[in-house]
């Protein structure tokens, strides 16, 4: 197979770097030297990525694009409202203004610009009006006409200005992961993002590209146009016969073509062994979703008004008292003050946010508060289901206080 002049998107590679260097995804194979080499390679890739995503000169803008990473079922896109719909396929490139739609039991995953991944879920209509790199800012707007989409916005050294627009509201997603659902019943809802699924898709897409570029006539040992790109393969090292890499035990590693492919496979196999990622299957297994947390439209309140309610001095303590009660019901613990460990600090943080808030209450203020609660929950729980329940308890405390009137203890 001729090696095509395929260039890894280093921002996508940067995703891998971020994932591999995350403590929660630490490689734990028996061969720690190989694992350490992978981490070093990932770090080099991350540095290379950051070189790519440098701020532009003031006033300078660059229009970015989105690439399709994965498609399942029926999904189509078109360049604008007047164009014909096209069946979506992996590696399709979408420009700003593109419209996407998915059918039932279908989804489409995109890498958008330099810093975000978007998972457009079943029965959805989504538009990408803006994907721009302007000076020091990466500005992206995603419009959800109906359905659900999950967003993972990465920090790549520039300012993220990522907005999600639904028919009823506009939300800002800053360096975090969040799902947004707009439906006929509940209006706009903020939900948990399926980060496991998004990470799985990102890594699968990236590694499929890496394998494609490595297993050509020119191998990593001969064609080191980008030594960092080859670093991932080179650090794999020769396989031991009978190892999980599944290589030919008679191959002494003298054949450069085999060595390049085998080294990449080894690296991939190492990661597969740890992460159990079915990288070479057509339909990678998506980890099962856990019940979402939801922050629905409050009856008669916008998200901004809900944030204002939470920050009302008389209500904040009541809400947190109720939240403490619910958390202790779901996760029994002991402590002083608010009895659930760490809740005092979260209360202080939310209270500080409320105190320092100026100007009108906007919908993204609720997103900020929910993000703080989510971060609190993620420090306490490692299982996603518990994290979502923890955030749901906060939503329930707010709703309960709003609807019933909760008097402080």
């Amino acid at each position, binding site marked *: 197979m001729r090696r095509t002049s395929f260039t890894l998107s280093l921002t996508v590679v940067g995703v891998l770097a971020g994932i591999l260097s995350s403590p929660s995804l630490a490689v734990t194979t028996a061969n720690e030297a190989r694992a350490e080499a992978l981490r070093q390679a990932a770090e080099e890739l991350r540095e290379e990525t950051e070189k790519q995503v440098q701020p532009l000169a003031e006033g300078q803008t660059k229009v970015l694009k989105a690439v399709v990473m994965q498609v399942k079922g029926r999904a189509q896109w078109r360049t604008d409202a007047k164009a014909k719909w096209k069946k979506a396929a992996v590696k399709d490139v979408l420009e700003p203004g593109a419209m996407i*739609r998915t059918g039932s039991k279908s989804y489409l995953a995109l890498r958008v610009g330099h810093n975000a991944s978007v998972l457009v879920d*079943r*029965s959805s209509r989504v538009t990408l009006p803006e994907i721009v790199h302007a000076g020091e800012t990466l500005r992206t707007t995603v419009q959800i006409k109906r359905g659900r989409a999950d967003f993972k916005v990465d920090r790549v050294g520039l300012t993220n200005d990522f907005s999600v627009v639904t028919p009823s509201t506009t939300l800002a997603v800053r360096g975090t992961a969040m799902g947004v659902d707009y439906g*006929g019943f509940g209006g706009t809802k903020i939900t948990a993002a399926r980060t496991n699924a998004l990470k799985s898709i990102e890594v699968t897409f990236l590694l499929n590209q890496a394998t494609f570029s490595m297993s050509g006539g020119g191998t990593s040992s001969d064609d080191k146009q980008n030594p960092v790109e080859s670093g991932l393969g080179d650090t794999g090292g020769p396989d031991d016969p009978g190892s999980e890499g599944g290589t030919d035990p008679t191959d002494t590693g003298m054949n450069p073509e085999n060595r390049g492919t085998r080294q990449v496979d080894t690296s991939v196999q190492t990661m597969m062994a740890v992460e159990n990622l079915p990288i070479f299957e057509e339909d990678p297994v998506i980890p*099962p979703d856990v019940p979402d947390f939801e922050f629905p439209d409050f009856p008669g309140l916008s998200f901004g008004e809900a944030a204002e309610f939470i920050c009302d001095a008389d209500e904040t303590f009541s809400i947190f008292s109720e939240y403490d009660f619910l958390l202790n019901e779901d996760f029994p613990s002991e402590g002083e003050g608010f009895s659930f460990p760490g809740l005092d600090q979260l209360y202080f943080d939310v209270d500080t946010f409320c105190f320092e808030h100026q100007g009108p209450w906007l919908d993204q203020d609720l997103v900020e508060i929910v993000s703080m609660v989510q971060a609190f929950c993620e420090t306490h729980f490692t299982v996603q289901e518990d994290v979502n329940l923890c955030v749901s308890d906060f939503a329930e405390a707010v709703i309960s206080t709003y609807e019933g009137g909760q008097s402080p203890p």
Partner: protein
Amino acid sequence: MAALVPLLLLVLMAGGCTIERMVHDDSAADALGALDDELDFWDEVATRHSVTNNDALHGLLLLAGVSEENETENDDISFSRRLRLARERGWIAEDRELPPNETATVGLMAMAVCEILEIPGGLSARVFGPSPRSCTRELIHRRMIPPRTDNQALSGLEFIDLVGRSEDHLGFRAAQQ
């Protein structure tokens, strides 16, 4: 005038308190009933202020995966075929007539969703069998629909939302098995 009230009530009771349901000129599934037109079908349904029986059955059969099983046959299945499939699955009583372009009831859609998701229901449903009212209450209890009566209708967007939530439920349930 007050004396006429009892008389009016008597007339109503004698005639039966039937509610005439709205009838549309057509359904999205008339022209977009083929599997390849699925995305156009959902786009069209989303614009409708209420869902017809024909559209409801088509969407629910898509959810159930029944249409896919018959993909090799005539893709553009007619309303009569949808009706037959719905009766076979117990969504509609055998003797109940269902005009295709009449507004679908929440009860009909709830019956179908309960069957597709294998929701057993409460005591009444388990003893006497599912009914539109019991299925509607069950979906409300599970927060899949807001409080509605079984005779009310759904808008196109609401119907798509219900189908989407049902799919989520199916996916989650499949992961548990």
